[in-house]
C-alpha cells in the first residue's frame, strides 16, 4: 500500500543506558509531572463516581459484584443442603429446588467464575505490566455495567418464582418445552453477559500483547500475562459456540423454528455439542487464571524465581489447546460411536500431562526456595491438595465405562466441586490475601485468615468427600428428596453439616475483607517482598497506575533492578507527565516490547452506562416476547456506542509526536496493525467467526445426524438470488478496500464515492439473501430453519458493516478521518475481510451444499 502521508515512527535512543537513567530529575520537574498526572487521572467524586472507567475502580466493582453473586449462589446451595439433610424433607418443594440448583450452577459459572477472572485481571494486569490502564477502559466499564444489569436480572427471576429450572446446561427438549419464561431469562440474560465476557477478553488480550512496558519481551513477561493470553484466546473460541447455540435455542423458543425438535428434523444433541464445546473449555477458562495467581504467589513465598518458566508456558498453552478436545466426555451416554468416545477419552487423559507439569513446577519452586508459610501460601497449599484430588477423580471419569457407571450421580457433584474449589475458589482467595495490600493499601487479618482457611478447608472436605460415596451408592443429582430406605440419609446429613461449616468460613472471610481497617496505619509498599511490578504501587494511593512507565530487563524487576522503584517514583522513566492533562499509556511491540506509540485512553463517561442500559433493554425485553421496545433499545445502544467512539477514539491528534521521556519521541496516533483498535477488531472478529462457524457446523451436523436432512422433495433456496448475494457481498468488500487505498493515496473524493457505493452493495447482498430463502417456511422443518438462521446471521452482520462504512464516510466528511489519520477505515476494512468470507460461505451453504448433499 502506498501512503502519500506516512505516519511518523518512534525516534530517539533506545534502550536507555545506565548513564541516562542515573541522570537526576529536578524537583520542580518531578512536581510538575505529578501534578499533571494527578489531574489527568483524577477519579470522579460524589455521585459522578459511577462514571469512573479507570481499571482500579471498575476492577473493584467487578470483583465485589462477582463476590456478591457468589454469596447469593452459595446461599442457594445452603438451602438445597437443608432440604437434603434428611429423607423426605419439605423445606423446598420440587419446583423451587429445581430453580435453586439451576441458578446455583448458572450463577457460579456465569456470574462468578468467569467474571471473577475478568475482574481480577482488569484490576491487576495493568499493574503487572506497569501500564497506566487497559487499552479500552470504557469497554471494561461497559462490560461491567452489562454484567451488573444482566446478573441482577437473571438472579432476580428467583424472587418472582420464575427462574430457569432445567439445570445449568439447559438441555432441550426439557428446556425448549418449558412453559414459563425461565429458559428465556437464562438464554437472553446470560447471552448478554457472555457478550460482556468476550469484550473483557478482547481487552485483556490486547492489554497483554500491546501494553507491556518497554523492554518486557515475551520471555520475561509475568506468567500471569501468559495465562491471560491463553485464557482470553480460549474465551474467544469457547463462548461463541454457546452464543450460536443460544441464538438457535431462542429462535426455537420465540418463533418455533425446530432446531432441537426431533419431530421436525431437529436434534437435541446439537445443543449438547454446542453447550459442551463451550462448557468444557470453560472449566479451564476458570482454572487457568486462578492457577496463574498461584504462579505469582509461589515465587514470592519461595523468595526465588519460578522453576521452569518455559514449562509453565508450555503447560498453559498446551492445556488451552487440549481442553477443546474433551467436550464429548460430558456426553458419553448419548450413544455416539465407540471410536468417537475413544477420541475424547484419550484427549481427556492427555490433558492431565500439561496440567500436572505446572503443578510439579510449583512444587519444585517451593522445594528449592526458602518457604515462608504466609496466608496466601496456606490457601495455595489447600488448593493444590483439593485440586489434585479432583483431578484424580477426573482421570477416573475420563474412562468411558466408569463414567457410564457414575453418570449423573453425586460422584460427579463431588468431582466438579473438588476441581472448582481447588482450581478456582482457593487460589482466588489466596490471591485476595496476596493482592489485598496492592488494591486497598491495607493488610487482612492473620488470625481471621487462619480461621477462615480451616473452616472452609475442613468444611469443604466434610461436605464433598462423602458425596463420592453417596454417588457410588447410587444417589442421582438434582433430586429434591429421597426415601429413607435408600440408606443415603447419614451421608447427606454429614454433607449438610459440612456446608454450614464452609458458610461460616466464608462469613469470616467476607467480614475480614470488608471491615474497615482505619486503625491499621500505613503498610509497607511491598509487604510480601515480591519481585513483580504490581508491588511498586504507590502508598498512599494514587490513581495514575505507574508514576512513570519503567524499562524492564528481568522477570522479577523488583529483585533484579535495584534502583527501579526509586527511578519510577522520580519520573525518570517514560511518560512521567501529562502536559495536556490527557490519560495516556505506552504501546509497545508484541514480541520485544519496543515502544511504538503513545495511546490516549478514554476517561470517565456516562455514555458507557447508558449504552449498557440500552443493551440490557435489547436483551431483556425479548424475554417477555416484547419486541418493539427491544428494537428501540438496540438502536439507542448502537447510537450510544457510536457517539462514544466518535467523540473519543482515533481523533486526529493536536501534536503528532510526544516527548515520552529519556529522549524518546513517540507518535501519538497509530493506524492499522500498529494500533490497539486494529488488534481489538481482529480479535473480536476471530470470536465472531467462531460463532458463525458454529452455526454452519449445525447445518452439517444435521446432515450427518439425520437421514431426512434435507427432507425429500424439500424446496431449496433460489440459486439466482444466492449468487447475487455472494457477488454483492464481495462487491461491498472490494469497495471498502478501494476506499482504504484511494484514501491513503489522498484521493478523498474517490474514497467517499466508494464509501457511498459500498453500503448499497451490502444492502443488495442482504436483500438478495433474504429473497433466496423467503419462500421457505422455517417452522416446517429444521432444513429451512437453519437456512433462515444463516440468512439472519448474514443480514445482521451486513447491517453492522453498513453502519461502519457510514461511520467512515461521516468521518471523512467531517474531518475525523483523513488520508493521514485513517485508523477507523483500516479497522472497518478488517471487519469487511471477514464479512466477505462469511458472505461466500453462507452463499456456498445456501446455494451449493443442497446439491452436494442430495
Amino acid at each position: 500500500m502506498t501512503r502519500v502521508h506516512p505516519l511518523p515512527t518512534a525516534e530517539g535512543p533506545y534502550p536507555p543506558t545506565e548513564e541516562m537513567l542515573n541522570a537526576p530529575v529536578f524537583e520542580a520537574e518531578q512536581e510538575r509531572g505529578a501534578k499533571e498526572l494527578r489531574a489527568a487521572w483524577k477519579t470522579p467524586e460524589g455521585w459522578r463516581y459511577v462514571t469512573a472507567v479507570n481499571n482500579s475502580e471498575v476492577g473493584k466493582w467487578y470483583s465485589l459484584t462477582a463476590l456478591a453473586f457468589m454469596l447469593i449462589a452459595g446461599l442457594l446451595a445452603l438451602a438445597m443442603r437443608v432440604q437434603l439433610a434428611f429423607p423426605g424433607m419439605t423445606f423446598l418443594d420440587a419446583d423451587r429446588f429445581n430453580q435453586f440448583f439451576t441458578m446455583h450452577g448458572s450463577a457460579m459459572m456465569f456470574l462468578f467464575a468467569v467474571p471473577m477472572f475478568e475482574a481480577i485481571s482488569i484490576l491487576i494486569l495493568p499493574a503487572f505490566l506497569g501500564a497506566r490502564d487497559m487499552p479500552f477502559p470504557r469497554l471494561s466499564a461497559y462490560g461491567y455495567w452489562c454484567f451488573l444489569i444482566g446478573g441482577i436480572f437473571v438472579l432476580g427471576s428467583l424472587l418472582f418464582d420464575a427462574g430457569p429450572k432445567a439445570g445449568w446446561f439447559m438441555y432441550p427438549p426439557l428446556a425448549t418445552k418449558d412453559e414459563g419464561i425461565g429458559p428465556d431469562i437464562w438464554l437472553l440474560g446470560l447471552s448478554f453477559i457472555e457478550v460482556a465476557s468476550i469484550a473483557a477478553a478482547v481487552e485483556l488480550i490486547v492489554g497483554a500483547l500491546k501494553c507491556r512496558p518497554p523492554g518486557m519481551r515475551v520471555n520475561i513477561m509475568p506468567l500471569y500475562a501468559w495465562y491471560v493470553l491463553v485464557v482470553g484466546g480460549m474465551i474467544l473460541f469457547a463462548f461463541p459456540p454457546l452464543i450460536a447455540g443460544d441464538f438457535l435455542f431462542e429462535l426455537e423458543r420465540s418463533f418455533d423454528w425446530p432446531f432441537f425438535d426431533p419431530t421436525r428434523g431437529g436434534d437435541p444433541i446439537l445443543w449438547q455439542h454446542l453447550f459442551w464445546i463451550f462448557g468444557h473449555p470453560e472449566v479451564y477458562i476458570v482454572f487457568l487464571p486462578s492457577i496463574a495467581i498461584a504462579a505469582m504467589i509461589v515465587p514470592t513465598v519461595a523468595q526465588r524465581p519460578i522453576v521452569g518458566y518455559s514449562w509453565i508456558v508450555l503447560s498453559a498453552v498446551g492445556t488451552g489447546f487440549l481442553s477443546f478436545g474433551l467436550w464429548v466426555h460430558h456426553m458419553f451416554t448419548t450413544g455416539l460411536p465407540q471410536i468417537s468416545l475413544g477420541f475424547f477419552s484419550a484427549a481427556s487423559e492427555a490433558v492431565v500431562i500439561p496440567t500436572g507439569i505446572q503443578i510439579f513446577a510449583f512444587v519444585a519452586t517451593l522445594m528449592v526456595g526458602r518457604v515462608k508459610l504466609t496466608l496466601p501460601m496456606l490457601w495455595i497449599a489447600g488448593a493444590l491438595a483439593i485440586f489434585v484430588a479432583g483431578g484424580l477423580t477426573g482421570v477416573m471419569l475420563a474412562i468411558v465405562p466408569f463414567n457410564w457407571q457414575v453418570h449423573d450421580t453425586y460422584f460427579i457433584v463431588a468431582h466438579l466441586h473438588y476441581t472448582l474449589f481447588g482450581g478456582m475458589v482457593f487460589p482466588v482467595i489466596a490471591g485476595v490475601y496476596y493482592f489485598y495490600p496492592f488494591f486497598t493499601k491495607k493488610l487482612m487479618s492473620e488470625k481471621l485468615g487462619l480461621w477462615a482457611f480451616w473452616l472452609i478447608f475442613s468444611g469443604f472436605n466434610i461436605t464433598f468427600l462423602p458425596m463420592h460415596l453417596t454417588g457410588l451408592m447410587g444417589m442421582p443429582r438434582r433430586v429434591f428428596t429421597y426415601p429413607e430406605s435408600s440408606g443415603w440419609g447419614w451421608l447427606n446429613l454429614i454433607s449438610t453439616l459440612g456446608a454450614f461449616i464452609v458458610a461460616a468460613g466464608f462469613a469470616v472471610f467476607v467480614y475480614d475483607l470488608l471491615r474497615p481497617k482505619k486503625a491499621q496505619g500505613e503498610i509497607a509498599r511491598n509487604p510480601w517482598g515480591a519481585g513483580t511490578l504490581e508491588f511498586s504501587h504507590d502508598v498512599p494511593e494514587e490513581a495514575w497506575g505507574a508514576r512513570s512507565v519503567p524499562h524492564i530487563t528481568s522477570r522479577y524487576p523488583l529483585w533484579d533492578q535495584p534502583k527501579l522503584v526509586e527511578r519510577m517514583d522520580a519520573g525518570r522513566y517514560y511518560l512521567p507527565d501529562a502536559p495536556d492533562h490527557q490519560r495516556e499509556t505506552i504501546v509497545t511491540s508484541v514480541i520485544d516490547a519496543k515502544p511504538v506509540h503513545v495511546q490516549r485512553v478514554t476517561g470517565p463517561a456516562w455514555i458507557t452506562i447508558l449504552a449498557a442500559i440500552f443493551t440490557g433493554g435489547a436483551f431483556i425485553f425479548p424475554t417477555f416476547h416484547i419486541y418493539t421496545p427491544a428494537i428501540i433499545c438496540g438502536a439507542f445502544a448502537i447510537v450510544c456506542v457510536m457517539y462514544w467512539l466518535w467523540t473519543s477514539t482515533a481523533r486526529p491528534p493536536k501534536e503528532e509526536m510526544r516527548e515520552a521521556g529519556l529522549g524518546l519521541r513517540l507518535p501519538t496516533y497509530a493506524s492499522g496493525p500498529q494500533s490497539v483498535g486494529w488488534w481489538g477488531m481482529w480479535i473480536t472478529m476471530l470470536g465472531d467467526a467462531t460463532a458463525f462457524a458454529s452455526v454452519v457446523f449445525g447445518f452439517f451436523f444435521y446432515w450427518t445426524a439425520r437421514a431426512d436432512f434435507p427432507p425429500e422433495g424439500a424446496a431449496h433456496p433460489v440459486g439466482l438470488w444466492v449468487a447475487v448475494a455472494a457477488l454483492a457481498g464481495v462487491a461491498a468488500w472490494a469497495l471498502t478496500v478501494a476506499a482504504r487505498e484511494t484514501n491513503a493515496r489522498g484521493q478523498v473524493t474517490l474514497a467517499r464515492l466508494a464509501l457511498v457505493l459500498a453500503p448499497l452493495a451490502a444492502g443488495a447482498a442482504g436483500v438478495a439473501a433474504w429473497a433466496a430463502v423467503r419462500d421457505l417456511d422455517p417452522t416446517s422443518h429444521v432444513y429451512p430453519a437453519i437456512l433462515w438462521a444463516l440468512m439472519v446471521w448474514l443480514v445482521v452482520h451486513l447491517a453492522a458493516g453498513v453502519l461502519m462504512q457510514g461511520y467512515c464516510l461521516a468521518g471523512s466528511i467531517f474531518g475525523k478521518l483523513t488520508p493521514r489519520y485513517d485508523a477507523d477505515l483500516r479497522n472497518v476494512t478488517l471487519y469487511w475481510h471477514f464479512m466477505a468470507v462469511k458472505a461466500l460461505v453462507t452463499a456456498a451453504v445456501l446455494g451449493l451444499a443442497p446439491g452436494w448433499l442430495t
Partner: protein
Amino acid sequence: MSDIRDREDAHEFRTEALSLWRITFAPLIWALHFVASYGATALVCAKGEAGAVEALLLGVILGTLVALALILWLGVQAWRQWDPRRDHEWENDKGTSEDRHQFLSHAGFLLAMISFIGVVYVALPVLLIGSCA
C-alpha cells in the same frame, strides 16, 4: 547508545521476529488431526457403507503418520533454534533478543512434544476399538 530505529535484532534473530504464532503450530496440528479424525468417524459411522470403517481406520492411521511427521519436523526445527547444547543455558530469563529467541524455541519444542503425545493418544482408539458400535 543505540537508536530505536536500528533493526539489528531483526536481522540477527529473524525467524520469529514476526509473531508468536509459531509456537502454536504444533498444537494446531494436533487440533486439526483431532477434528479430522472425529469428523471422519462421525461421517463414516452415520453414512458409511460396508467396508467404510476399514477405509476410515486406514485413513486415520495415515493422517496420524502425516501429523506426527509434521510435528516431529517442527520439533526438530525448534530444537535446533533452542540449541541447549551450545550454551547450557536453560532459563532464558534475560531481557535480550537471544534469550527471547531461545525461549520461544524452547516453548515451541515443548509444545511439539506435548502435541506429539496428544496425537498418539487420539490415534489409539482407532487401533484398539476399530468399530462404530
